[in-house]
């Protein structure tokens, strides 16, 4: 599953964010995710893909695209 699809499904099912708000350029803030929610989302992604996203990296995420990119990078490292 692509990182974007996984994040979209989590945001819709667990965080109950409407699917049409979920675009790569949307900021996490626009989606109504506060800092605790962002950390919770990252833990879910770590569990889903078996990766680790360091806290420092998490703090730099602004848009949903940033999150997808960070997850993709870690997944490539995990595969390689």
């Amino acid at each position, binding site marked *: 599953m692509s990182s974007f699809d996984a994040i979209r499904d989590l945001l819709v099912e*667990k*965080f*109950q964010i409407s699917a049409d708000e979920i675009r790569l350029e949307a900021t996490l803030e626009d989606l*109504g*995710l*506060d800092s*605790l*929610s962002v*950390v*919770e989302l990252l*833990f879910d992604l770590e569990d889903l893909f078996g990766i*680790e996203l360091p806290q420092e990296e998490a703090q730099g995420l602004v848009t949903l695209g940033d999150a997808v990119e960070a997850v993709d990078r870690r997944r490539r490292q995990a595969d390689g």
Partner: protein
Amino acid sequence: MDRRVVVTGIGVVVPHGRGIDPVFDAVHRGCSAIDLVETGSAELATLELLARCPVDVATEVTGPRRILMDRVSMLAAVAGRDAVSDAGLDGPGELADAGLFVGCAIGGAEAIQAAHERYVGRRTRRIRPTSVPMGMPSAPTAHLGIDLGIRGPAVTFSVACSSSSIAVGEGALAIRHGRIDRALVGGSEAMLNDVSVAAWQSMGVLAASDPEEPAASCRPFDAGRTGFVLGEGAAFLVLEERESALARGAPIRAEIVGYGTSNDAVSLTDPDAEGQARAIRAAPHDAGVAPESIGYVNAHATATEVGDVAEVEAIRAVFGIRAGRLAVSSTKSMHGHLIGAAGALEAALTIEAVRTGRIPPTANLRAKDPACDVDVVPDPGRTDAELEFALSNSFAFGGSNAALLFRKP
């Protein structure tokens, strides 16, 4: 003159389902919500007697805050909302000055177990930060406050099995003393995660499954009893100062006229009849009525030998020779032991008993223990048109006892 306190709303989300009318009917009919169910992790799977709440609360709770809600807070959110709507106080601002008094013995047990599983299972210190606000015993209180806009005193009582009786009693006192006019009071508990169940199992207080009929395994006051069954759920009441409730034409289910509480100061786990008797005696004393006026006692009676016998001894100490004619039933035989939510659920059932004159039975009696020499209302429930006052007892590990006295409106 003292300000009087009435109950104007009830919300229950408990093993028998949702809504006080169907729940009370099932209990009065003697229906058990206890079942032998699969529980535990894959490698430690086991069958346990549990009284699970069948209501799908996760779909009832919406919005971004749901990711911070353990099951205990979801149960509370639904039951609290139902109580407020039953009282007709769901309009904006109706509860702005109200108080919130909530019993919870454990807190977010599932979130805490999940955090420990992660720490041990993955050997990591990277633990979800949400486990902090999800695990705290005051989480249900906090969510209810935000959901319902309750901005007066918001207090959580963690007093083991007396938690929510004490929450109800303290909420009533706050109204009587004029600090507030309205309060949402009750309790929530969701601790059927397997670590909790296994720890209770080790205490040797849980019922053995009846080979023919698992639902009938909890047998308070019976010579063949083996212990209790853990349950989960939430129960809430709306309390109001009587004059203001009457002025707005509120539906009045009962009046809470007395609250007694005492501490054994004896043992962490053994009951003490003398301590219990002091709480029971204090309730009618607080109400200014004679104990003889009480027609029904919803007993704490968990179906442990020491517990049931101590409670009957306490009841006999207070009611004397009249104890033999007093109806004393244990509804835990059907809904299990909801720990921190037990007192509030049993208070709700006691309120309905006194309002309707229908006395719920003690289910599953086969041969009454001769040491429990009171009228334990064998199945099925009965009707007593004369019933005016009813008492609900709760006794906790740690020795804290509470008794709530309700009067027909």
